[in-house]
């Protein structure tokens, strides 16, 4: 049987491309791990940079409140409506609060906010740090004897890890209000009853799960945002490219981390 040389060449090229993709993926993960290690080692040294951390937390957190509010409100309303319709068919619409509580608190609010707000935070960091990189401002920080990891990465990493859990806590409240609104106006289930059943379903572990996910997602967004900014090549086009890659990287990382955390928490919660 004779082999087709064109097919063999294409196969070889595909395998080579796959290998290259895997190598660059591993290099990317390695680079982020190194940056995380450097930030955790150098960041907590004195001075802690509390001003920078507070400033970044306010910047990331407050600027994200409108988006977090809108996302949470709509996801709460949509989920309540979807579940309400399905439950009404079985005459069980009064259970709407029970059913929506777990999905919103444990899964949808933290993940959705990470994918939207987290991506927004990360792209902001990439654009800012990437611009600093191409205009040599990061080199200038080093040249002036300061540490760019300590001055730029550490505050953003900590700020994102603080801001995201706060936003998720806020988002949980808003999503519940959204569900309450739909339950009362569309399905005639009183808001007070919805609230009582919603809260009754939740246990402390569910809040812990929600906040742990938010913490991890926030840290991931901060890390990816900073790493992408620092690894920006030359020119303004590179900043755009890095920022675009950040969107994909944060979304994929968040979903992978979500799967890992859900696997970890499911047996407990």
């Amino acid at each position: 049987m004779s082999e087709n040389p064109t097919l063999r060449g294409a196969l070889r090229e595909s395998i080579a491309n796959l290998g290259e993709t895997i190598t660059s993926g591993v290099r990317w993960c390695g680079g982020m791990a190194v940056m995380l290690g450097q930030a955790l080692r150098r960041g907590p040294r004195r001075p802690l940079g509390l001003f920078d951390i507070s400033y970044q937390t306010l910047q990331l957190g407050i600027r994200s409140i409108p988006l977090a509010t809108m996302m949470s409100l709509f996801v709460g309303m949509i989920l309540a409506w979807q579940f309400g319709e399905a439950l009404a068919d079985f005459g069980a619409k009064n259970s709407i609060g029970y059913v929506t509580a777990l999905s919103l608190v444990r899964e949808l609010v933290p993940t959705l906010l990470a994918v939207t707000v987290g991506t927004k935070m990360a792209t902001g960091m990439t654009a800012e740090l990437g611009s600093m990189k191409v205009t040599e401002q990061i080199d200038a920080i080093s040249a002036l004897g300061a540490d760019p990891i300590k001055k730029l990465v550490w505050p953003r990493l900590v700020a994102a890890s603080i801001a995201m859990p706060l936003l998720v806590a806020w988002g949980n409240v808003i999503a519940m209000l959204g569900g309450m609104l739909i339950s009362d106006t569309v399905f005639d289930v009183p808001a007070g009853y919805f609230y009582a059943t919603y809260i009754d379903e939740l246990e402390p572990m569910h809040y812990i799960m929600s906040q742990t996910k938010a913490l991890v997602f926030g840290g991931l967004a901060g890390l990816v945002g900073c790493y992408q900014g620092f690894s920006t090549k030359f020119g303004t086009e590179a900043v755009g490219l890095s920022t675009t890659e950040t969107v994909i990287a944060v979304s994929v990382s968040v979903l992978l981390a979500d799967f890992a955390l859900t696997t970890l928490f499911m047996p407990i919660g």
Partner: protein
Amino acid sequence: MSDANHSTPGPAPLDPGRIADAARSQTAAALARGAAALPSSSGVRRALGTTIGEFHGKTCARGETLIQFENIHKAFGDNVIYRDMNLDIRLGETLTIIGGSGEGKSVCLKLMIGLLRAEAGRVLYYGEDVGEMNAEQLREIRMRVSMVFQGGALFDSMTIVQNVGYALREHTDMGDEEIEARAVESLTLVGLGPADHPGIMEQIPAALSVGMRKRVALARSIAQRPEVILYDEPTTGLDPSNCNRIARMIRKLQRELGVTSIVVTHDMTTAWYVADRVAMLYDKSFPFVDEVEAFRAIDDPRVRNFIEGRTG
């Protein structure tokens, strides 16, 4: 370069008490050496008291080698920048580095302060290998060797006074007023003092012209009163009048602060004006290094083609 008999605890942090002590010790050391090492060369530097020609108990007299590149090999992937490169920089001189675009002139400056590391060879500052230094030692070096970046690299989010005082805020315990006073001094030295430019201190870099931004970058680099200033294409993108202003500024700083300057440029007018010696980067090393007049007289076609702008 020689070891001093007394030990000196590295570069003096810039607080007034230690500055005065350092100034006294510097004067004593200069007298002891028969003023061989470069003493405080002006009222400005005497007042600030940073040590020139002394580092970690080692001394260097004017005209002696301060920074030495030894068999440097540097590459970015397959792109080899330096191959077995050697270059000496002497205390108190202004060395201009010329060469074609993209050949790695700026890399040379970044190697000097450890922003980049060579794959082989050594960069010696007072005989200490910069490539082997840890973060703390590099910080110490970077307080003595400052760099003016090509585009200025001023921090967008900070005001001019914050930019100029950045290193002082990071590394000294100077108060806000002292830092502001130092910023005013430094800006005045580059012709941007608040007396002539009211309100400049609180402006942000984006509000200034390119030429002014470069001068602010220069002020930032001299605020810590360095021993060496590295200029990365200081006149690129400026009109002839601003080029001239910057070139005069480089000369003035050398005269008034006694700094050693390394200027990377391909603007030959600036190169001839500021330089004591000229080094030309060609084929991954510096085959031509000489005093200005001797350099201008070099008959090698590679040099002539470059300095006369021939394309052939």
